[in-house]
Protein backbone atom coordinates (compact mmCIF):
# COMPACT_ATOMS: atom_id res chain seq x y z
CA UNK A 1 0.00 0.00 0.00
CA UNK A 2 1.24 3.44 -0.84
CA UNK A 3 1.65 6.18 1.76
CA UNK A 4 0.79 4.33 4.96
CA UNK A 5 0.51 6.40 8.15
CA UNK A 6 3.66 4.95 9.71
CA UNK A 7 5.83 6.10 6.82
CA UNK A 8 4.60 9.46 5.65
CA UNK A 9 5.50 10.31 2.11
CA UNK A 10 8.61 12.50 2.15
CA UNK A 11 8.11 16.11 1.19
CA UNK A 12 9.12 16.18 -2.42
CA UNK A 13 10.96 18.97 -4.12
CA UNK A 14 11.81 19.40 -7.75
CA UNK A 15 15.54 19.64 -7.00
CA UNK A 16 16.48 16.28 -8.55
CA UNK A 17 14.32 17.01 -11.60
CA UNK A 18 16.11 20.32 -12.18
CA UNK A 19 19.44 18.63 -11.52
CA UNK A 20 18.65 15.99 -14.17
CA UNK A 21 17.53 18.62 -16.68
CA UNK A 22 20.60 20.77 -16.00
CA UNK A 23 22.95 17.83 -16.56
CA UNK A 24 21.33 17.06 -19.94
CA UNK A 25 21.22 20.67 -21.19
CA UNK A 26 24.68 21.66 -19.91
CA UNK A 27 26.06 18.34 -21.19
CA UNK A 28 24.76 19.02 -24.70
CA UNK A 29 26.25 22.54 -24.69
CA UNK A 30 29.55 21.30 -23.25
CA UNK A 31 29.76 18.63 -25.95
CA UNK A 32 30.15 21.45 -28.48
CA UNK A 33 31.92 24.15 -26.41
CA UNK A 34 34.44 21.84 -24.74
CA UNK A 35 35.36 19.87 -27.86
CA UNK A 36 36.04 23.18 -29.68
CA UNK A 37 38.10 24.37 -26.69
CA UNK A 38 40.15 21.14 -26.68
CA UNK A 39 40.61 21.21 -30.46
CA UNK A 40 41.95 24.79 -30.39
CA UNK A 41 44.01 24.69 -27.19
CA UNK A 42 45.29 21.12 -27.00
CA UNK A 43 45.06 19.23 -30.29
CA UNK A 44 45.77 21.52 -33.26
CA UNK A 45 48.71 23.30 -31.64
CA UNK A 46 51.39 22.34 -29.13
CA UNK A 47 50.61 23.39 -25.56
CA UNK A 48 53.95 25.31 -25.57
CA UNK A 49 52.13 28.03 -27.56
CA UNK A 50 49.74 28.65 -24.69
CA UNK A 51 51.67 31.18 -22.62
CA UNK A 52 50.90 34.55 -21.06
CA UNK A 53 51.04 36.43 -24.39
CA UNK A 54 48.66 33.88 -25.96
CA UNK A 55 46.10 34.27 -23.17
CA UNK A 56 46.42 38.07 -23.23
CA UNK A 57 45.83 38.15 -27.01
CA UNK A 58 42.86 35.79 -26.68
CA UNK A 59 41.22 37.74 -23.87
CA UNK A 60 41.66 41.00 -25.79
CA UNK A 61 38.41 39.86 -27.41
CA UNK A 62 35.28 39.98 -25.21
CA UNK A 63 33.93 37.06 -27.24
CA UNK A 64 36.61 34.68 -25.93
CA UNK A 65 36.16 36.01 -22.38
CA UNK A 66 32.46 35.18 -22.55
CA UNK A 67 33.21 31.83 -24.18
CA UNK A 68 35.61 30.90 -21.37
CA UNK A 69 33.22 32.19 -18.71
CA UNK A 70 30.31 30.10 -20.03
CA UNK A 71 32.62 27.07 -20.34
CA UNK A 72 33.83 27.57 -16.76
CA UNK A 73 30.34 28.00 -15.30
CA UNK A 74 28.67 25.13 -17.16
CA UNK A 75 31.65 22.76 -16.89
CA UNK A 76 32.39 23.35 -13.22
CA UNK A 77 28.78 23.15 -12.00
CA UNK A 78 28.15 20.07 -14.21
CA UNK A 79 31.27 18.47 -12.73
CA UNK A 80 30.46 19.36 -9.11
CA UNK A 81 26.89 18.13 -9.46
CA UNK A 82 28.22 14.90 -10.97
CA UNK A 83 30.51 14.41 -7.96
CA UNK A 84 27.51 15.06 -5.67
CA UNK A 85 25.51 12.29 -7.39
CA UNK A 86 28.45 9.86 -7.19
CA UNK A 87 28.89 10.65 -3.47
CA UNK A 88 25.16 10.09 -2.86
CA UNK A 89 25.59 6.64 -4.39
CA UNK A 90 28.89 5.52 -2.97
CA UNK A 91 29.11 7.12 0.51
CA UNK A 92 26.81 5.15 2.80
CA UNK A 93 27.34 7.03 6.06
CA UNK A 94 24.90 9.99 6.23
CA UNK A 95 27.34 12.02 8.35
CA UNK A 96 30.25 11.66 5.94
CA UNK A 97 27.95 12.22 2.97
CA UNK A 98 26.66 15.50 4.39
CA UNK A 99 30.14 16.66 5.46
CA UNK A 100 31.79 15.90 2.12
CA UNK A 101 28.87 17.35 0.10
CA UNK A 102 29.12 20.60 2.09
CA UNK A 103 32.90 20.63 1.56
CA UNK A 104 32.38 19.98 -2.17
CA UNK A 105 30.12 23.00 -2.64
CA UNK A 106 32.35 25.21 -0.45
CA UNK A 107 35.53 24.40 -2.42
CA UNK A 108 33.49 24.54 -5.63
CA UNK A 109 32.17 28.00 -4.88
CA UNK A 110 35.62 29.35 -3.96
CA UNK A 111 37.18 28.00 -7.17
CA UNK A 112 34.28 29.34 -9.27
CA UNK A 113 34.84 32.82 -7.83
CA UNK A 114 38.62 32.57 -8.41
CA UNK A 115 38.11 31.43 -12.01
CA UNK A 116 35.41 33.96 -12.88
CA UNK A 117 37.21 36.93 -11.36
CA UNK A 118 40.39 36.34 -13.40
CA UNK A 119 38.39 36.09 -16.64
CA UNK A 120 36.49 39.29 -15.77
CA UNK A 121 39.28 41.41 -14.35
CA UNK A 122 42.35 40.37 -16.38
CA UNK A 123 44.08 43.33 -18.00
CA UNK A 124 46.99 42.81 -20.36
CA UNK A 125 49.98 44.94 -19.36
CA UNK A 126 51.00 47.53 -21.93
CA UNK A 127 53.25 46.00 -24.56
CA UNK A 128 52.25 42.38 -23.90
CA UNK A 129 50.17 40.24 -26.23
Amino acid at each position, binding site marked *: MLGSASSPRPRTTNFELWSWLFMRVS*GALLLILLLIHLAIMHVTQP*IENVNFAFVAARWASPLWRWYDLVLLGLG*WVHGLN*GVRVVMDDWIHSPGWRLTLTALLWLIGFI*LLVIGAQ*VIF*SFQAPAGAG
Partner: protein
Amino acid sequence: MSSFRWRTIAWFAWYRGQSGQWAQLLHRITGLGIVFFLGLHILDTSLVGFGPSVYNTVTAIYHNFVVRLLEVVLVGLVIYHALNGLRVTVIDLWDEGALYQAQMWGVVILLFLVLFLPSAFLMLAPYFR
Protein backbone atom coordinates in the same frame (compact mmCIF):
# COMPACT_ATOMS: atom_id res chain seq x y z
CA MET B 1 35.11 -6.51 11.15
CA SER B 2 35.01 -7.47 7.53
CA SER B 3 31.96 -5.44 6.57
CA PHE B 4 34.06 -3.18 4.38
CA ARG B 5 35.56 -6.14 2.54
CA TRP B 6 32.17 -7.76 2.04
CA ARG B 7 30.73 -4.53 0.76
CA THR B 8 33.63 -4.19 -1.67
CA ILE B 9 33.14 -7.74 -2.94
CA ALA B 10 29.40 -7.18 -3.24
CA TRP B 11 30.08 -3.99 -5.17
CA PHE B 12 32.31 -5.74 -7.72
CA ALA B 13 29.87 -8.62 -7.97
CA TRP B 14 27.13 -6.14 -8.79
CA TYR B 15 29.27 -4.74 -11.62
CA ARG B 16 28.97 -7.87 -13.72
CA GLY B 17 29.16 -5.89 -16.93
CA GLN B 18 25.47 -6.38 -17.62
CA SER B 19 23.04 -3.79 -18.93
CA GLY B 20 25.46 -1.00 -19.53
CA GLN B 21 26.99 -1.08 -16.04
CA TRP B 22 30.52 -0.89 -17.43
CA ALA B 23 29.46 2.04 -19.62
CA GLN B 24 28.11 3.78 -16.53
CA LEU B 25 31.15 2.95 -14.35
CA LEU B 26 33.44 4.33 -17.07
CA HIS B 27 31.20 7.40 -17.31
CA ARG B 28 31.77 8.08 -13.62
CA ILE B 29 35.50 7.41 -13.63
CA THR B 30 36.02 9.66 -16.68
CA GLY B 31 33.80 12.35 -15.14
CA LEU B 32 35.73 12.30 -11.84
CA GLY B 33 39.02 12.51 -13.73
CA ILE B 34 37.83 15.49 -15.77
CA VAL B 35 36.46 17.44 -12.79
CA PHE B 36 39.73 16.86 -10.89
CA PHE B 37 41.71 18.33 -13.80
CA LEU B 38 39.25 21.22 -14.14
CA GLY B 39 39.89 22.18 -10.50
CA LEU B 40 43.66 22.30 -11.20
CA HIS B 41 43.02 24.14 -14.47
CA ILE B 42 41.04 26.90 -12.71
CA LEU B 43 43.98 27.41 -10.34
CA ASP B 44 46.65 27.44 -13.07
CA THR B 45 44.67 29.85 -15.25
CA SER B 46 44.05 32.17 -12.28
CA LEU B 47 47.84 32.67 -12.14
CA VAL B 48 47.59 34.72 -15.34
CA GLY B 49 46.44 37.52 -13.03
CA PHE B 50 49.93 37.56 -11.42
CA GLY B 51 51.74 38.47 -14.64
CA PRO B 52 53.84 36.79 -17.35
CA SER B 53 56.73 35.43 -15.27
CA VAL B 54 54.53 33.61 -12.73
CA TYR B 55 52.14 32.20 -15.37
CA ASN B 56 54.84 31.14 -17.84
CA THR B 57 56.98 29.55 -15.11
CA VAL B 58 54.15 27.47 -13.65
CA THR B 59 52.57 26.41 -16.97
CA ALA B 60 56.03 25.25 -18.15
CA ILE B 61 55.07 22.06 -16.23
CA TYR B 62 52.66 21.28 -19.08
CA HIS B 63 55.54 21.19 -21.60
CA ASN B 64 56.96 18.05 -20.01
CA PHE B 65 56.45 14.96 -22.22
CA VAL B 66 54.97 12.89 -19.38
CA VAL B 67 52.45 15.66 -18.67
CA ARG B 68 51.70 15.78 -22.41
CA LEU B 69 50.80 12.07 -22.17
CA LEU B 70 48.42 12.88 -19.29
CA GLU B 71 46.93 15.61 -21.48
CA VAL B 72 46.28 13.00 -24.20
CA VAL B 73 44.56 10.87 -21.54
CA LEU B 74 42.47 13.91 -20.53
CA VAL B 75 41.31 14.41 -24.13
CA GLY B 76 40.35 10.72 -24.19
CA LEU B 77 38.36 11.07 -20.94
CA VAL B 78 36.45 14.05 -22.35
CA ILE B 79 35.68 12.34 -25.68
CA TYR B 80 34.34 9.19 -23.96
CA HIS B 81 32.33 11.17 -21.39
CA ALA B 82 30.84 13.43 -24.09
CA LEU B 83 29.82 10.56 -26.40
CA ASN B 84 28.46 8.35 -23.61
CA GLY B 85 26.62 11.35 -22.14
CA LEU B 86 24.91 11.72 -25.49
CA ARG B 87 24.00 8.00 -25.35
CA VAL B 88 22.52 8.44 -21.84
CA THR B 89 20.48 11.41 -23.05
CA VAL B 90 19.13 9.41 -26.00
CA ILE B 91 18.21 6.55 -23.62
CA ASP B 92 16.34 9.08 -21.45
CA LEU B 93 14.49 10.91 -24.20
CA TRP B 94 13.76 8.17 -26.77
CA ASP B 95 11.00 5.70 -25.82
CA GLU B 96 12.95 2.71 -27.09
CA GLY B 97 16.37 4.04 -26.16
CA ALA B 98 16.90 1.53 -23.36
CA LEU B 99 16.33 -1.37 -25.78
CA TYR B 100 19.23 -0.24 -27.94
CA GLN B 101 21.62 0.91 -25.19
CA ALA B 102 24.10 -1.91 -25.87
CA GLN B 103 24.26 -1.19 -29.61
CA MET B 104 24.58 2.52 -28.85
CA TRP B 105 27.53 1.75 -26.56
CA GLY B 106 29.15 0.01 -29.51
CA VAL B 107 28.66 3.20 -31.54
CA VAL B 108 30.14 5.23 -28.65
CA ILE B 109 33.28 3.03 -28.61
CA LEU B 110 33.60 3.27 -32.41
CA LEU B 111 33.21 7.07 -32.48
CA PHE B 112 35.60 7.31 -29.53
CA LEU B 113 38.31 5.57 -31.56
CA VAL B 114 37.56 7.68 -34.65
CA LEU B 115 37.94 10.94 -32.66
CA PHE B 116 40.59 9.93 -30.13
CA LEU B 117 43.21 8.19 -32.28
CA PRO B 118 43.76 11.12 -34.71
CA SER B 119 43.72 13.57 -31.77
CA ALA B 120 46.36 11.55 -29.91
CA PHE B 121 48.42 11.36 -33.11
CA LEU B 122 48.23 15.14 -33.67
CA MET B 123 49.18 15.80 -30.03
CA LEU B 124 52.16 13.43 -29.93
CA ALA B 125 53.54 13.67 -33.49
CA PRO B 126 55.59 16.86 -32.81
CA TYR B 127 57.63 14.95 -30.19
CA PHE B 128 58.78 12.36 -32.73
CA ARG B 129 60.01 14.71 -35.44
